[in-house]
C-alpha cells in the first residue's frame, strides 16, 4: 500500500470516474472537499498550529516536492499575511472550501499530476464514450480512473474501521465528513450500512473532539448548494410519518453513468450480448470484471459496479443492446 496522506487518499476516491477535462458540479464539490482535506491533513500533522511550519509551507522544499506542491496550491492563496497564521481549524476549512474556480483547477492539476507520477491515477476515455450516440458521433470525453488496487485498499480500510465496533482512526473520522460533504457516501456504503454510518457519526460527534468540531460544519457554495438543497427538498417531499428512507440520509452527487451500448445482432442471447458489451468497453480502455453472468449481468467497470440490463432504443428501427445502470455500493 502506497503511503498516502489524507488528501491523496480522499482524492483517489473523489476524482475516480470524474470528467478530467470539464469542471462539473460533482467535480467542483469534490475539489472543494479535497481542498478541505489538505487543511485537515495539515491539522492532523500539527502544522496549522505552528506559524513557523506555515511559513515553511510557503517556501519550496527540495526533498518533498510531491507533498508540497498540492499543499501550496491550497495554502498559498489563503495565508497571505501574518494575521492569518493563528486561525482556528474552521476558519481554514471555510476559506479552503471557498477557493475560486481558477484556484480549484490549479489545485486539481497539482494533486492529479502528483498521483499520476506515482501511477495511482490515470486518464482514460469516459464510460459515456461507449454509449451508442457518443460512440457513433466519435465524441471523446476523458475521465479519471484511480488505481484499482489502491482504491480498494483505501475504501476497504475505511469500511473495516467504521463499520466494525471500536474507535475509528482520526483519518477515518475526517474521511467520513469529506465523503458526506462531497456526496460520495453512496459509492462506498450500501443502504443498510448508511444507517450504521449515521449512528457512528452521531456517536463520534459526542465522543471525538475532532468530530465535534468538524461534523456540524458544512461546505456549501453556489450551484452545489442548489443541487444539495434540491435533494433536501426531495427528502422532505417523499417523507412519510414512518420516515424518509435511508436513501436520503446523505445527498448523492451522481458520478456513475447510465450508458446504452448497442449489440451487433438483434435479439442476441445473454452470452453474445455480454461479449459485445465487453468488447466495446475494452476497446475504450476500461477494465471490466464480470461479477455475475446471466440475463442481467453484474459488471465491475473500473471501480464502480453496473448492472447490464437488456434494453432497446427506438428510432426508425429498434436498436437492441444493454443499458448499464449504476449499482451502489461496490
Amino acid at each position: 500500500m502506497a503511503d498516502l496522506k489524507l488528501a491523496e487518499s480522499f482524492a483517489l476516491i473523489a476524482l475516480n470516474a470524474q470528467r478530467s477535462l470539464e469542471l462539473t458540479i460533482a467535480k467542483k464539490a469534490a475539489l472543494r472537499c479535497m481542498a478541505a482535506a489538505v487543511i485537515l491533513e495539515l491539522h492532523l500533522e500539527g502544522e496549522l498550529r505552528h506559524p513557523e511550519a506555515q511559513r515553511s509551507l510557503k517556501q519550496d522544499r527540495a526533498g518533498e516536492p510531491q507533498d508540497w506542491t498540492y499543499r501550496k496550491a491550497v495554502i498559498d492563496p489563503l495565508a497571505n499575511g501574518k494575521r492569518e497564521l493563528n486561525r482556528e481549524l474552521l476558519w481554514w476549512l471555510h476559506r479552503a472550501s471557498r477557493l475560486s474556480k481558477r484556484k480549484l483547477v490549479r489545485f486539481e492539476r497539482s494533486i492529479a499530476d502528483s498521483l499520476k507520477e506515482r501511477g495511482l491515477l490515470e486518464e482514460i476515455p469516459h464510460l459515456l464514450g461507449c454509449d451508442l450516440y457518443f460512440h457513433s458521433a466519435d465524441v471523446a470525453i476523458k475521465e479519471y480512473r484511480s488505481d484499482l488496487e489502491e482504491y480498494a485498499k483505501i475504501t476497504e480500510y475505511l469500511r473495516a474501521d467504521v463499520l466494525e465496533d471500536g474507535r475509528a482512526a482520526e483519518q477515518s473520522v475526517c474521511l467520513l465528513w469529506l465523503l458526506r460533504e462531497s456526496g460520495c457516501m453512496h459509492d462506498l456504503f450500501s443502504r443498510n450500512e448508511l444507517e450504521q454510518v449515521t449512528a457512528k457519526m452521531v456517536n463520534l460527534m459526542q465522543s471525538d473532539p475532532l468530530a465535534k468540531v468538524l461534523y456540524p460544519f458544512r461546505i456549501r457554495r453556489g450551484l452545489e448548494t442548489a443541487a444539495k438543497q434540491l435533494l433536501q427538498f426531495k427528502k422532505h417531499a417523499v417523507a412519510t410519518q414512518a420516515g424518509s428512507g435511508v436513501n436520503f440520509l446523505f445527498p448523492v452527487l451522481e458520478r456513475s453513468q447510465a450508458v446504452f451500448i448497442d449489440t451487433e445482432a438483434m435479439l442476441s442471447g445473454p452470452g453474445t450480448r455480454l461479449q459485445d458489451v465487453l468488447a466495446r468497453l475494452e476497446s475504450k480502455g476500461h477494465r471490466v470484471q464480470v461479477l455475475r453472468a446471466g440475463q442481467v449481468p453484474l459488471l465491475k467497470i473500473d471501480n464502480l459496479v453496473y448492472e447490464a440490463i437488456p434494453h432497446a432504443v427506438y428510432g426508425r428501427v429498434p436498436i437492441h443492446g444493454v443499458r448499464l445502470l449504476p449499482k451502489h455500493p461496490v
Partner: protein
Amino acid sequence: MSRQRSMEAILASEYVSIGELTRLTGARYSTLKFYTEEGMLPFEQAEENLTRRYLRESTVELIFRIKRMKTDGLSIPQIKAALKEER
C-alpha cells in the same frame, strides 16, 4: 456453486471459508477480506484459483482478539503491527 454448510458441519470441521467465518464471528465479509489482504489472517490456498481456507479455531480466536484490540482503542495499523510482532 456449493451448498451452504450447516452450523453443525462448520463447527465440526478443521478448515472454514471466509463466508463461514462471517457466520462464526459476526464480522463483515469485507472486513475479513481486508484483514486477509493485509496479512492479518493467515490462510491456506492449494492453488491460486481455489478458495482460501482458514484454520477454524485459531482464526476465530484471532478475529475476536482483533475485535477486542479495536474496542480497546487501537487503530488497524497498530493492531497489524502488534500481530506481526507476536509471529
